[in-house]
């Protein structure tokens, strides 16, 4: 088990190195930070001094090595735009995005899985047909449109929920949470639903397809032939067998939710990393973009590791070492 985790971490290292290289390459090829930071009026001395202070006059490899070394220590330099340490900015913004992503994932799994099971079991009922039609809408409508529609209905027309921001937050150490206040929770609803909608419909359709597949298998027929109760067959035997693909997709989707919360955060002016990223792109704030890229890569790598570990927990056939083969 430990060996497996270590080998997975070793496999992740090259991935992170490549992402680091790409992030770093942005410094050299995307925009000219010096020009942006200096503005219109500057002297040659000022320019030289800034280039030296940013370390841009050193050779590529020295700069890259320095970048890696700093990144390992969580140090991504100063934001060109805000002139504050990038690590600090990200630390400020990350809780908002992570809470949003977590709630979106919760919404999509807690609604998507039961809907998938239901539509798989009763595929001809009118409710299943309704769910399927509804899921088609969820899959095909772009996120920003769903967000705007939700704002229109629940904020503008009904006035139940706030249309932007996080509401009141509570500071726990460096983590600012919106989960502990009423206005924070209310502010979470619309963005979570917007962000989770695509995932919800995807998971529902996936669970449905897998359920239909599993219900046709011999071991389900045999479970019926053994006279087991429907509940045990549907949830104990069938649903558990659909979990491996569902975990894979849900895991990748969670990474996607975190990485691509950008649109939702923009629509709801959610003070998270996605909004920070968009603002940074607008002003070619490369240190922030580089750090964001690295962070997202780390999130994906970590989620993949967790997904692999979950496979182990669910499917005994994947557990190596413990298996003694009979004859």
């Amino acid at each position: 088990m430990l060996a497996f985790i270590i080998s997975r971490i070793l496999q992740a290292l090259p991935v992170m190195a490549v992402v680091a290289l790409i992030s770093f390459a942005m410094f050299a090829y995307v925009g000219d930070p010096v020009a942006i930071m200096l503005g219109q009026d500057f002297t040659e001395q000022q320019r030289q001094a800034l280039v030296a202070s940013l370390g841009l006059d050193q050779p590529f490899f020295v700069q890259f090595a320095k970048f890696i070394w700093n990144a390992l220590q969580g140090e991504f330099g100063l934001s060109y735009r805000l002139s504050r340490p990038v690590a600090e900015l990200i630390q400020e913004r990350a809780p908002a995005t992570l809470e949003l992503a977590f709630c979106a994932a919760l919404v999509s799994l807690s609604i998507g899985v039961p809907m998938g099971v239901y539509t798989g079991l009763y595929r001809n009922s009118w409710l299943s047909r309704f769910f399927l039609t509804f899921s088609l809408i969820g899959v095909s409508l772009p996120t920003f449109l769903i967000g705007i529609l939700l704002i229109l209905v629940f904020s503008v027309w009904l006035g139940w929920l706030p249309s932007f921001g996080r509401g009141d937050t509570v500071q726990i150490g460096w983590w600012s949470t919106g989960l502990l206040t009423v206005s924070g929770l209310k502010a979470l609803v619309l963005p979570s639903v917007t962000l989770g909608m695509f995932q919800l419909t995807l998971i529902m359709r996936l669970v449905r397809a897998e359920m239909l597949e599993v219900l046709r298998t011999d071991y389900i027929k045999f479970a019926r032939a053994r006279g087991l109760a429907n509940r045990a067959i549907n949830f104990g035997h069938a649903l558990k067998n659909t979990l491996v693909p569902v975990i894979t997709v849900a895991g990748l989707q969670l990474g996607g939710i975190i990485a691509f919360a950008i649109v939702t955060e923009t629509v709801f002016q959610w003070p998270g990393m996605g909004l920070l990223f968009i603002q940074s792109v607008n002003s070619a704030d490369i240190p922030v973009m580089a750090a964001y890229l690295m962070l997202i890569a780390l999130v994906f790598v970590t989620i993949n590791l967790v997904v692999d570990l979950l496979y182990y927990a669910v499917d005994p056939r994947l557990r190596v070492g413990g298996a003694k083969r009979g004859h």
Partner: protein
Amino acid sequence: MAPLLEVRDLRVEFPTRRGVLTALDGVSFSIMPGEVLGVVGESGAGKSMTGAAIIGLLEPPGRIAGGQILLNGERIDNLRYDQMRRIRGREIGAIFQDPLTTLNPLYTVGDQLVETIQTHLGLDGAEARRRAVGWLEMVGIPAAAQRIDSYPHEFSGGMRQRVVIALALCAEPKLIVADEPTTALDVSIQAQVIALLKGLARDKGTSMMLVTHDMGVIAEAADRVAVMYAGRIAEIGPVREVVKHPKHPYSAGLMASIPPLDRRVEHLAQIDGAMPRLSAIPRGCAFNPRCPEVFARCLVERPALLATGATEAACWLYDPASEKHAPEAMPHG
């Protein structure tokens, strides 16, 4: 003695877009307590479907359109799903063809046994587990007390079929429907599994409906045999009689196509033609296009099972009213 299972004039239909297909038509037979009835026939003859109808698990859209199935004299073909669920496993056990796909891969064999035992017998966990170990020992799993916590993939095919047999028997049903229980196994394992099934059925007094296309298995394990053709029973009787003196021309052809072990033959006998599709079953006797003995009446009227000596055959040759009669002995080999 009253029969344990009685199937009367069973008819199974499949509604399709192009009309209703009749998969089983007028199938009648009975199984006595402790008796093993073999059911043979080509693929698609309706053997497995008969078994599925008895355990109430016909694949939709298939449905029982006529006839009755009685267990201990009580009808079970018209029970609601939940009533039938209590009979499945408890009164009628089932064994499927492929042991590699019959067990749920995510649960240990012990979990699956305990679950079945608890569902039907209402025992507490410890007692159910004790019995589960006992069943694994009974079906010949070595070191059962340790292997009970193994997953299906940790067993070989033959061992898995033993586990399946334990699962089918663990709630002590009175009837086992075994659908091709040895077809997916290595030839060397087949005999062991058949011997095990036969031995357990005898010890527990369990009746068995043994569906197979392997005449060797029938000869080995069955007391009586039903030969099925195109969704109907062609002949039914004691195994020895049907094997040695088949009455129906189809059974005769089937027996003739078994290669003899004691002499060399140049060509294996075969029955010309193929079994008709369900949508194209001919009028009269379903076997008439392939029958070497066919005569006018076979093309018009459908024969019912007629007693002829020790067996019953659905063939006009055995009706005294027919203008043509059976030759002294059926051509055999």
